[in-house]
């Protein structure tokens, strides 16, 4: 792998950029591998990368039915934060956040991690209780998250409307300064480049159509649109399609897949300095390096694999954005799109071994998976390599629903009285 740097760019500029090598190779699949990762999104590629770099396992194929990074990785609003309430969630998301800080250097690929600060707004007494609970728990977990008065929130994010007369006035906010955004494509491409350079095969346009198991139940490989590919271990990192793949192995999952939409505005000069999230009015907004306002919408209410959603969902979101930022009604929506998010009953992911020997699953990230990408890949690689979960992902089992040991971040923010 030739190193990227400003000098490399200058060198290439002299020869019209014709000397760049391929960022990743596109090999034909081999007959078998030590490990197959199903799904070349950020999580899957990161898993392959850490299998190679941390565990020395390079006889790995990442199979992708479309193009790498083309699922939720390339369709999300790129918010990064780790100020989760429960120890388990805080543990995995902060593990990821620590990896984000330095990921560009680790990958020699500018993923543009920008700790611009993630602000979450409180609009009523209940919000204050919930968000302060987060602040206190985060502090004792060593995770930065501070409480801001409305005035301090406005100072940090000048476009914010903190009028007491607003329909849902801002009564305060939390701020995680290490939170921010990153460039989604770069994350997938950077991991792909790093993994490919270490011998991992990234095989695109190769859809898994079946999971083969030996008489003893263990996986032996996968059937694909490009033929059977053998493997001792298979890690499923298929996001919205996790149920589909797991069903092929005979494992029924506690998952439902919903359309999740997002949109961007036309690019404008810098106007929005951080990430603002409001759970109460359902609005999530930041501004990209290119100048587009990046806005996350809610999920549609029904299961769908269509990657499209209803206009009324976007309406609901823009209503909230324009209520909080009334100067934005004249801004224009440039692009809207949909992804498929797989949601567990407690809204927390599953990163675990499965009842099938040699089969591992990493799914259920719902609407928040992007921020976890490095951490998720890192501990999932551990789980696959050692056939044993890393302590950080040990709580994220499939079995927790049967026993009742849920990690219910959403319930903890339950709407009150």
């Amino acid at each position, binding site marked *: 792998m030739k190193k990227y740097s400003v000098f490399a760019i200058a060198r290439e500029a002299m020869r019209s950029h014709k000397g760049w090598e391929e960022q990743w190779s596109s090999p034909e699949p081999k007959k078998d591998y030590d490990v197959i990762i199903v799904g070349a999104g950020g999580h899957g590629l990161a898993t392959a990368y850490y299998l190679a770099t941390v565990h020395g396992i390079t006889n790995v194929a990442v199979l992708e039915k479309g193009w790498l990074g083309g699922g939720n990785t390339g369709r999300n609003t790129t918010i990064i934060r780790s100020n989760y309430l429960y120890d388990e969630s805080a543990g995995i998301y902060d593990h990821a956040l620590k990896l984000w800080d330095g990921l560009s250097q680790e990958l020699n690929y500018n993923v543009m991690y920008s700790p611009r600060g993630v602000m979450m707004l409180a609009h009523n007494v209940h919000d204050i209780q919930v968000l302060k609970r987060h602040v206190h728990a985060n502090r004792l977990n060593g995770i930065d998250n501070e409480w801001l008065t409305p005035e301090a929130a406005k100072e940090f994010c000048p476009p914010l409307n903190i009028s007491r007369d607003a329909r849902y006035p801002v009564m305060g906010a939390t701020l995680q300064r290490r939170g921010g955004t990153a460039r989604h494509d770069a994350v997938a491409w950077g991991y792909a480049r790093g993994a490919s350079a270490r011998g991992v095969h990234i095989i695109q346009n190769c859809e898994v159509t079946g999971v083969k198991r030996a008489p003893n139940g263990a996986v032996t490989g996968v059937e694909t649109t490009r033929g059977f590919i053998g493997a001792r271990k298979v890690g499923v990192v298929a996001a919205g*399609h996790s*149920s*589909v793949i797991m069903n092929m192995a005979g494992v*029924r*999952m*506690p*998952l*439902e*897949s919903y359309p999740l939409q997002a949109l961007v505005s036309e690019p404008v000069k810098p106007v929005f300095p951080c990430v603002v999230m409001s759970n109460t009015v359902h609005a999530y907004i930041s501004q990209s390096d290119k100048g587009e306002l990046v806005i996350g919408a809610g999920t549609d*209410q*029904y*299961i*769908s*694999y*269509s990657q*499209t959603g*209803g*206009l*009324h969902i976007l309406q609901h979101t823009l209503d909230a954005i324009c209520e909080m930022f009334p100067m934005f009604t004249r801004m224009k929506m440039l692009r809207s799109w949909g992804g498929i998010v*797989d949601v567990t*009953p407690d809204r927390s992911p599953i990163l675990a071994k499965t009842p099938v020997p040699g089969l591992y699953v990493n799914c259920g990230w719902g609407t928040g998976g992007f921020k976890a990408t490095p951490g998720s890949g890192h501990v999932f690689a551990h789980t696959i390599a050692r056939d044993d979960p890393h302590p950080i992902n040990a709580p994220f089992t499939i079995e927790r*629903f*049967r*026993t009742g040991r849920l990690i219910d971040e959403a319930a903890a923010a339950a709407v009150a009285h």
Partner: protein
Amino acid sequence: MLLIRCPYCEEERPELEFRNAGEAHIARSADMAATSDDDFEKFFFIRSNPKGIIYERWRHMHGCARFFNAVRDTVSDRFLMTYKAGEPKPAKLPGASE
């Protein structure tokens, strides 16, 4: 915004009037208290989440307020049919290739 035929109102109405209520034909045990942990997990947590034909429940929340069932293709979001709550899972689907 989907257009959904309500089997009670006997016409297609806009999605804004409806609320999805999850997978259909998951029976609640008549002897709930005696259900095993495994069966309870299957009943309450495990979902088919199919890519393709789904049997699902809807409520015509802001219409006749009835719950009913629908058969929909989760890839195209096209409804194949809707039928009243309590009616059995249809053996044959209109327009579905066999």
